[in-house]
C-alpha cells in the first residue's frame, strides 16, 4: 500500500533515494558512471531532489543522450514513486570529458 507523503520522514526519503540511485546506476552502467543528489528547494521554493548524473562520453553523444537520459529518469522516478514522496525531481547531466575540463568540485568523484 502506498505510504502517504506526510508519513515519510527525512531519513526514509534519504534511504529510498540512496537505494534508487544505487539500483539505477548499476542497471545503466557503463553509460551512467555515477549519480549524486541533493535535497533542497527549487527556484520557486518547492521541495525537490536534484540529481547530478555523470555520463560516459559515449552516452553523452547527441545520438544517444536523449535515450540514455529518458531511461535513467524513467527508472529513477519509478523506483522513487514520485507522488508518494511529494518532491519534484530535477536532473543535470555532464560528460566525463566536460568534467575533466571544468574540474568542478560538485561534480568530482568522491
Amino acid at each position, binding site marked *: 500500500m502506498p505510504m502517504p507523503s506526510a508519513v515519510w520522514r527525512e531519513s526514509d526519503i534519504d534511504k529510498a533515494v540512496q537505494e534508487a540511485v544505487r539500483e539505477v546506476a548499476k542497471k545503466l552502467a557503463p553509460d551512467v558512471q555515477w549519480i549524486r543528489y541533493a535535497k533542497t528547494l*527549487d*527556484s*520557486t521554493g*518547492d521541495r*525537490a531532489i536534484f540529481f547530478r548524473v555523470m*555520463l560516459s562520453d559515449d552516452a*553523452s553523444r*547527441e545520438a544517444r*543522450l*536523449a535515450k540514455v*537520459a*529518458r531511461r535513467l529518469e524513467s527508472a529513477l522516478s519509478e523506483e522513487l514513486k*514520485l*507522488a508518494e514522496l511529494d518532491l*519534484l525531481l*530535477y*536532473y*543535470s*547531466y*555532464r*560528460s566525463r570529458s*566536460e568534467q575533466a575540463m*571544468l574540474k*568542478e568540485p560538485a561534480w568530482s568523484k568522491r
Partner: protein
Amino acid sequence: MVQAMTFPKDLLEQANYLARRERRKPKQASLRRAVSTAYYALFHLLIAEAVGNWKRTDQRTKLARTFEHGRMKQASIKTVKEEFSGQSAQTVMDLQKVADAFIRLQDFRHKADYDNTFTLTHTEALRQIALASDAFASWSAIRKERLRMTTSSPC
C-alpha cells in the same frame, strides 16, 4: 502580432541552433540562451493552445498575457500528481510528460538566466532542449484528447 502556432516551433528551432552554434567550444551565452529559449518555446506553445480555444479571437492576445509562470508551474505540479482514474493511460502519460517538462525547464531557465555560479555544459543544454522537443511531441499526440481531473480541483 506573432503567429501563435509557429512562434513556439520557431523558438524551439532557435534553441537548437544556439546550442550547436559553437560545436568545439560553446559559449556560455549561447548555451544559456538556448536553454532559456527552450523553456519559452514550451511556455508559448501551451499558452497558444489554451487561448486557441477561446471563441472571441480578438481577445486571445489579451488573454495570453494573463498566463503566469508561477501559476502554470503549480498547475503542472497538480497534473503530475493527478491520478486521472479510469482514463486513457497513454494520454495521461503524455500529458504528465508535458507537465513534468514544464516544471523542469522552468527551473533550469531560472538558473540559466540568473545563476552565474555554475557552468552550463553542452550535454546539459542538449538534454534540456530534447526535453522540450519531447514535450512538443507528447502535446501534439494528445492536443485533441479530453481528460478529467479526478482527485483534485483544476487550477
